[in-house]
């Protein structure tokens, strides 16, 4: 374990450290009586030193299998895994300098907190005094001081979570692996632990791979996110890239909400593509070097809805904004925002979001059935690969 790595910036910059773990062409096939299941198709991935990398995807996308391949619990059918440049594809899990934090914590129920945390240190045959010291240090980092004699069953969910983390970090692993560790906590505690986990990871600077299906978690914690589905990596990037520049409809839809807009390709080439949509044309970045079929998306918050009362003043930015007329057909008030549904003149339905603060409450929204004006800035439109 390194002492402290520079704190990764909130918006990942490309300023990567050296490669800690590299996966090359990793494939995992499960053969069972039910048939053949290709859990991982061909995974290429580099995990940088000290970063917090999240593997995000729906259940069954292969993310847990990928984590277990890293841990050594599964051996890839094909491909190689290397750690700090040395191949470790078939190295057994107890020989790998990686530890795993499990979804159900997997605390040893017959051992108290101290013994749970000391478990790995004792296996490593460290001197008694050093074990005691290291456990004490980690207990204080984890805010567990005074709980050393408790059995896991006598702890709250959050405390158990912290013990599990303590047990894993105390052996100073090269890589820390998390298998949906927060999914057993209630919503409030989950938010709190999210911050705490990230704090500890940054404090220790330990390279971490975190598996989750919760996009909020992924966005909040990660330096980089790997979005997976069907055993493939869909996109790798920092949270802002993933949200603002999704490459496929799957990513756009899985991370946040996506408003899909029917479109047709007018011109394509040189990394740009011009799309005809909503009676207008926009030229945007082409996400597919291979010329795969495209569709257009915008985020609901980029679809602005106003009462239709004519004001000619804003017409001069026509080149930058798509303007449409329609009727407001649905309002869902969610507190900080409202979700709106607009029926366009052509009969098409469009989702939008309006954010609220003290100055712009829901009462300022047009009423149901009112004629409205919809505006979408052209730069908010994204072309994505039409693949879910």
């Amino acid at each position: 374990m390194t002492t402290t790595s520079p704190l990764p910036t909130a918006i990942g910059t490309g300023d990567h450290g050296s490669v800690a773990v590299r996966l090359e062409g990793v494939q995992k096939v499960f053969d069972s009586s039910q048939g053949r299941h290709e859990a991982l198709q061909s995974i290429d991935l580099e995990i940088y030193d000290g970063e917090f990398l999240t593997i995000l995807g729906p259940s069954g996308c292969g993310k847990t299998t990928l984590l277990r391949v890293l841990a050594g619990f599964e051996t890839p059918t094909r491909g190689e895994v290397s750690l700090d440049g040395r191949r470790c594809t078939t190295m057994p899990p107890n020989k790998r300098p990686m530890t795993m934090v499990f979804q159900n914590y997997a605390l040893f129920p017959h051992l108290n907190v101290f013994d749970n945390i000391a478990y790995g240190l004792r296996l490593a045959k460290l001197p008694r005094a050093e074990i005691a010291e290291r456990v004490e240090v980690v207990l204080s980092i984890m805010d567990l001081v005074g709980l050393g004699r408790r059995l896991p069953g006598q702890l709250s969910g959050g405390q158990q979570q912290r013990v599990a983390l303590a047990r894993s970090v105390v052996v100073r692993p090269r890589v820390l692996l998390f298998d949906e560790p927060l999914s057993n906590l209630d919503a409030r505690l989950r938010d709190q632990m999210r911050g705490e986990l990230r704090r500890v990871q940054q404090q220790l600077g330990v390279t971490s791979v975190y598996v989750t299906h919760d996009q909020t978690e992924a966005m909040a914690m990660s330096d980089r996110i790997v979005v997976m589905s069907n055993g493939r990596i869909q996109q790798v990037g920092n949270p802002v890239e993933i949200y603002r520049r999704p490459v496929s409809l799957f990513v756009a839809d899985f991370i946040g909400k996506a408003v899909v807009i029917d479109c047709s390709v007018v011109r394509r080439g040189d990394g740009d593509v011009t799309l005809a949509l909503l009676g207008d044309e926009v030229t945007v970045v082409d996400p597919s070097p291979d010329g795969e079929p495209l569709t257009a998306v915008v985020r609901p918050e980029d679809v602005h809805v106003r009462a239709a009362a004519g004001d000619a003043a804003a017409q001069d930015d026509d080149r930058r904004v798509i303007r449409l007329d329609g009727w407001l057909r649905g309002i869902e008030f969610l507190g900080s925002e409202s979700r709106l549904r607009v029926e366009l003149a052509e009969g098409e339905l469009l989702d939008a979001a309006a954010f609220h603060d003290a100055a712009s409450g829901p009462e300022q929204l047009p009423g149901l059935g009112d004629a409205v004006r919809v505006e979408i800035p052209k730069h908010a439109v994204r072309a994505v690969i039409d693949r879910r």
Partner: protein
Amino acid sequence: MEAVAVLPRRGMSDRARSSVAGIRAQGVFGVAVLLAVALIVLFVVYPTVQIIARSLSSDGRVQWDRLFHASETVRTIRNTLLLGAVVGTVGTVVGLVMAFVQVRTTLPARRLLHLLMLIPVVSPPFSVAMSVITLFGRSGLISKELFNTRYDISGLDGLTIAISISFMPIAYLNFVGMLRAFDGSLEEAATDLGGGALYRLRTVTLPLLAPGIASSFLLIFVSSIADLGNPVLLGGEFDVLATRIYLAVIGEFNLDKASVYSVMLLGPSLLIFAAQALWLRRKEYVTVTGKVAAPLRPISSIPALIALGTFAAAVLAFIALIYGYIVVGAFTKVWNINFTTTLDNVRFVLSGAGYEAFRDTIILALAATPIAGFAGLVIAFVITQRRFRGRGLLDFASVLGVAVPGTIIGIGLLLAYNEARLGGLIPELQGTAAIIVLAFTVRSMPGVVRVAVGALNQLGTNLEEASVSLGATTFQTFRKIVLPLIRPALFSSLIWSFARSMTSLSPIIFLITPQWRIMTAQILNEADQGRFSHAAAYSLVLVTVVLLAVGLLAITTGFSSAGEARGAWQLFGNRKRIGEGPS
């Protein structure tokens, strides 16, 4: 008891586990696994094969020929199957109703009900037969003294009563488990849809219990056709295969004939056991597993409660009468004839001529227990691993020790080891204590396997993976994590296998010698000679020893809060849950 009191409840792949975290038949484990497998192969499979071979030898074929053309053989087989069917039905029905009373009513004394239902588990099955004879036999207390009839209960009537009582705990425990796991919302849904109580029972509850009913029936069927003690004492003119085998060996010392009868008994036993294990087990598992979403509501209909209560009270009174009368027999001069109280019989067992059998039985049962425990644990550990070639085979082989009737195990051991085998690696075992210990071991090991498998499955895989992830080897993980966690369950299963060895008759009846006497065989012998009071005293002492062992277990596991002991308590009944109401 001789019953196949192992109620397998799991499919083959409930314990998903990775190949690497799992066992890699390495070092210590490799050796342990080999030893455990050798135990099964050498002392279950090989002896059974020996019997089959003997029945196919030229002398055996002569016997086949003769027996096939004898009308008495046909009658014996018919009797055997009839007995199995009748006892299977009675035992299953009584077990089901009693389980219903236990789980679905709030009637008083359900703890007593549970204890009385489990007494047959800790007593030699045929001790019931003695009571039945002295109470209802030709000169029975009730049949002659009370009603002055010349009714003779021996035959199918008596056997049905005695064997049903002996084996109904199988069904009872099975149904108690199933009913506790039953999702009450299913019945609530049926009620919502307008179903009346009986309609609900018929259309929802019973169909869901159907796999359990079938498996209870089959297990009791197999156990009762393999039972030896009851038919010997109480069979009368009603011949069954088990008594034929017994008479062929003890009366004629004709092992060819015994082998042929054994094969006739082995066929249906293995067939039924395989059907139960392969088909029903899976079905049962699918039907009633998982968390209880809604508790079952206790039955509130007054007529139903009266009917159930009366039935349960009658059954319990009968069990109490049967076992109570054994106690009477143990403390009277001549059971059923001279009721002068005396301690002579008990003294006979504890310090008189019977002491040797008392001592030998305990020593040999104690010797078998750790072997069965160790082998059972190793096998359980191996078969809970996911990717293990030949795992299914080992899983099945591990229950062979109870699937093969005890008499056949006994004769098989006799045939297999009447001379040195494996080039002298295994010496001649006939007449030694070792062969008795082996018989005890192979008969009680399957129970240990089941309990340990249950406990291991409860552990889940994450704990082991966590340990390995922190740097432990498979063996370190087993020693530091797995073993401490399944220790309570393991301890219960050891006590259980001790109880089983103490009460078993059929596997050792042909193996005892004047040097090594076994209490169950002594009981049969004394009863056969008409010294019923001695037999009763033996039974009483035996049950007391087993109960003391169980008491020890209750005390020790009572102090540890670990819930893992539950697996074994399923075999003894779940002590912790006895007092609980259904809600």
